[in-house]
């Protein structure tokens, strides 16, 4: 028996407190002065004897409580000896099948090492196989059947995932807690340096686990990799598209690499790039000629190296025609069209094109043909067209409304029906201009709080926005500047000023470009989907309420989920590299190009010292023992009885309370009938 915190034993002196209280300061029966005891004889009542018994019991409980408390703080532990070896040991074989194990024949060697370790197992010992990939996968339950274990090892296939040894240690800690016997873990891995977790403490092994590492790679192999590819997920004008690729060399000498861009298996461009020794280089391809619809792109480098699997990088994109925006403007002032179109074009490869129509001619248009509608200070609209716009929004359409001098003649904002309470000409007031304050940074249109920074507003409409309308930004006088009004399935954004550089100078600010692009994407429901994803990342298949089936097809074009899972799963984690197509009900398919985590491309191995340190976090004695001839050695485990001490302490505290109550009750009962005594104390 020992103590984790023996200095707390000094607290045992506290045991003197109840002794002092009970023996030195104990409650005495208050003596009653009497003239003479000449005619008295000593008599003791049974209740007094009982009380004395209670008194001693109370003191005993108090002493015990303090002793237990001190013991609890001192954290005693016992060393338990458990036999090692024989049928009491569990042999766990861990095969690393992460992406880096595709290098050379690392995976085959790893399997061979685990086969070898399992074959040396005693016939009565149980074994278990674990595959360390994107997650820790238990291949079989503990068994003594060699055939089953060999089949489990053979069933492990190359993977594209990435794991850290922290994940394995966490699983082993859980396993040790559930398996009450020594565990010997044989880990066959390339021991990549990049597989180290953030903190070494995460690799802590439990006492009952003995780690036996099997290194299957030298860790000095040079490797080239396409590290990243940056490409748009949606393309409308292929000529303007720029695809950038980063080529990385690990433990490589400086050299030239040919980089090939291909789409749907067709090589589009080839470039040669100089890559410095053990460094990286960027390659840009301008133009991405592809057919309309979903396209599978790939950037790859030529030549073979240690790990060929990372010599290419997948990306996917959708080519589509630009969607039209119906831009209605006041015929007297057409500058709003100019600024808006210029801003969208400046934003890059915008999926929208603008079709400008004067307000008085808008009645002949069909809103449903457009991605969304912009009403730039459009006051005069035929009632039928306004109703058509309202229906359009109800069915999911969107409108951006800007309010200028013409709109102020109305008492309500068209479609959104927000009351217009007047106008504000700041130039006539003392402050000369207004500025935007209280910007909602969480809204997609004003994602950054500086969306309207520096803009001076001279003229604005005073809107009254009640729920369900949501004020996204306010002017410095507190009036709403940008309001979103949900109507049916659609949405209306109302801007309380103009975008013609008259009522404000917003169009002249760079933020206007971001505003135009974000508002267009938001209103047009354009999805800014990335062109690639990592193995292990997830895609959301459905919302909580939706029960519609979602189909996910793997790289081979076959569904990757069962029908029941496809009907219920909310997310899907990509298990390997390749192109995955996700088809939701009522929408066009989405393409996800999945690549392995490129941290796996760095094949540099952990130094042996680090592996030894890791081994030492667990039990080390048995690591050197002969697996084939396990001896009946004794293994010591620390066992802390703090739970039991705490439980006993609780019981003693309850008993002390009960006895104390009874004792005090009897003492106070006596004091209720005091003997009248002399006025002076004896």
């Amino acid at each position, binding site marked *: 028996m020992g103590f984790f915190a023996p200095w707390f034993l000094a607290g045992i002196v506290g045991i003197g407190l109840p002794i002092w209280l009970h023996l030195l300061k104990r409650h*005495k*029966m*208050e*003596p*009653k*002065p*009497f*003239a*003479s*005891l*000449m*005619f*008295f*004889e*000593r*008599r*003791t*009542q049974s*209740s*007094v004897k009982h009380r004395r018994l209670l008194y001693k019991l109370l003191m005993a409980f108090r002493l015990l409580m303090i002793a237990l408390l001190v013991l609890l703080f001192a954290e005693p532990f016992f060393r338990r000896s458990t036999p090692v070896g024989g049928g009491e040991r569990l042999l766990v074989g861990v095969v690393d099948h992460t992406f880096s194990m595709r290098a050379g024949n690392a995976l085959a060697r790893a399997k061979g090492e685990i086969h070898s370790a399992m074959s040396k197992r005693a016939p009565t010992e149980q074994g278990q196989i674990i595959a360390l990939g994107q997650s820790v996968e238990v291949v079989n339950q503990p068994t003594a059947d060699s055939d089953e274990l060999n089949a489990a090892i053979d069933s492990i296939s190359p993977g594209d995932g990435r794991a850290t040894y922290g994940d394995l240690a966490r699983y082993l800690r859980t396993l040790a807690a559930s398996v009450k016997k020594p565990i010997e873990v044989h880990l066959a891995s390339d021991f990549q340096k990049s597989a180290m977790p953030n903190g070494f403490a995460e690799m802590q092994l439990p006492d009952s686990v003995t780690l036996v590492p099997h290194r299957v790679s030298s860790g000095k192999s040079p490797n080239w990799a396409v590290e990243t590819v940056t490409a748009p997920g949606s393309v409308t004008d292929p000529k303007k598209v720029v695809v950038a690729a980063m080529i990385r060399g690990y433990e490589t000498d400086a050299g030239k690499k040919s980089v090939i861009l291909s789409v749907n298996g067709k090589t589009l461009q080839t470039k040669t790039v100089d890559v410095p020794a053990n460094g990286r280089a960027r390659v840009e391809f301008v133009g991405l000629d592809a057919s309309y619809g979903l396209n599978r792109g790939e950037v790859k480098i030529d030549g073979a190296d240690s790990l060929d699997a990372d010599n290419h990088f997948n990306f996917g994109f959708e080519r589509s025609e630009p969607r039209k925006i119906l831009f209605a403007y006041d015929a007297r002032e057409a500058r709003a069209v100019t600024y808006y179109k210029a801003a969208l074009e400046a934003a890059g490869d915008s999926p929208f094109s603008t079709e400008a129509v004067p307000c008085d001619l808008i009645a002949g248009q069909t809103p449903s043909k457009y991605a969304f509608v912009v009403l730039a200070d459009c006051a005069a609209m035929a009632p039928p067209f306004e109703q058509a716009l309202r229906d359009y929004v109800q069915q999911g359409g969107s409108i951006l409304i800007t309010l200028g001098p013409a709109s102020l003649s109305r008492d309500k904002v068209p479609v959104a029906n927000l009351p217009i309470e007047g106008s504000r000409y700041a130039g006539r007031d003392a402050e000369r201009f207004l500025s935007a304050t209280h910007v909602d940074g969480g809204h997609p249109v004003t994602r950054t709080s500086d969306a309207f920074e520096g803009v001076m507003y001279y003229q604005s409409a005073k809107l009254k926005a009640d729920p369900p309308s949501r004020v996204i930004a306010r002017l410095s006088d507190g009036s709403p500047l940008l309001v979103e009004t949900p109507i049916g399935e659609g949405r209306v954004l109302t801007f309380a000023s103009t975008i013609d550089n008259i009522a404000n100078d917003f169009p002249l600010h760079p933020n206007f470009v971001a505003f135009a692009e974000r508002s267009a994407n938001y209103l047009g429901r354009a999805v800014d989907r990335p062109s690639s994803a990592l193995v292990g990342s997830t895609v959301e298949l459905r919302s909580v309420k939706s029960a519609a089936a979602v189909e996910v097809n793997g790289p081979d074009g076959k569904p990757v989920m069962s029908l029941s899972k496809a009907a219920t799963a909310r997310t899907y984690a990509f298990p390997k590299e390749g192109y995955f197509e996700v088809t939701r009900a009522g929408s066009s398919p989405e393409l996800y190009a999945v690549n392995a985590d490129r941290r796996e491309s760095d094949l540099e191995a952990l130094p042996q010292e680090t592996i030894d340190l890791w081994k030492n976090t667990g039990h080390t004695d048995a690591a050197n023992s002969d697996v084939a001839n396990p001896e009946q050695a004794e293994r010591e485990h620390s066992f802390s009885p703090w739970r039991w001490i705490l439980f006993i302490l609780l019981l003693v505290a309850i008993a002390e309370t009960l006895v104390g109550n009874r004792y005090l009750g009897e003492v106070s*009962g*006596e004091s*209720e*009938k*005091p*003997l*009248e*005594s*002399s*006025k*002076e104390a*004896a």
Partner: protein
Amino acid sequence: MSQQYLSPDVLASISGLDLVAKTVVEGFIAGLHRSPDFGFSQEFAEYRVYNPGDDLRHVDWNVFARSEKMYLKRYRGETNTLVTILLDQSASMKFGSHAIRKLDFARFLAASIAYLASGQRDAIGLVVFDDEVRNYIPPSGRQGQLHRIMHAIEHADFGERTNFAKPFVHCMEFLKRRGLVVVISDFYEDPAKIIEAVAPLGSRGNEVALFHILDPEEIAPKLGDSVLLLDMETQETLEVTSEYARLEYVQKINSHIADLRSKAQGANMDYCLMPTDRPLDAGLREYLAARKGRI
């Protein structure tokens, strides 16, 4: 008309021992209805026919001159009586279960007797004792004696244990002349030993009166549950039960009182039990009435 006695609690509220004594005695005398001749010394008693052999000095020659018959004039006291008060100030006299303690009551009693004697021009002396003689004022009829007595009584403080043998031996030396010896104590001692100690005073021709001062709680204790009692003289503690105090103790104290009364009377002494809740003047009156009858 019923006599209105003075409650001990009322006496306790009066400041000044001489005032207490005056209040007791004058009220007591006023209640006697023209009986001022009650006291400790009476000068004239009766005439008796002369018989041969009688002392001629006692013949009332004035009567003989008028009637030519010889009568002897009889006196009950040749001179004024010498009253000596023995006041017990032992620690047990400190006890008191109500407003007045035993020693306070004893003080009132002693002061009242002294005041009464002084009014009859008797010589008064005082012995304050516990296990020793703590204070002694020789009997005297001089002016200012009462004041000295009162002062000594007032300053009688609580002493140690009671020991009758030792102080009474001293008293024997002090009391050369015959007179009245008043012993005021709670008499926590074997009655035989008390009488043995006091009896020599009586054998010298002294008249001895024992005033037994007891608190009502001492006569009939009302203890609660089991209680730890502290002897005020010996400081010993004793755990006793209420049953014992209610039954056996009462029996023992009553037996003690009866024994003391019996032995005192047997030794030709006056005995008067004075519980401290009893009006002082009533007790004093009872004693004097009994003494008159005996005389």
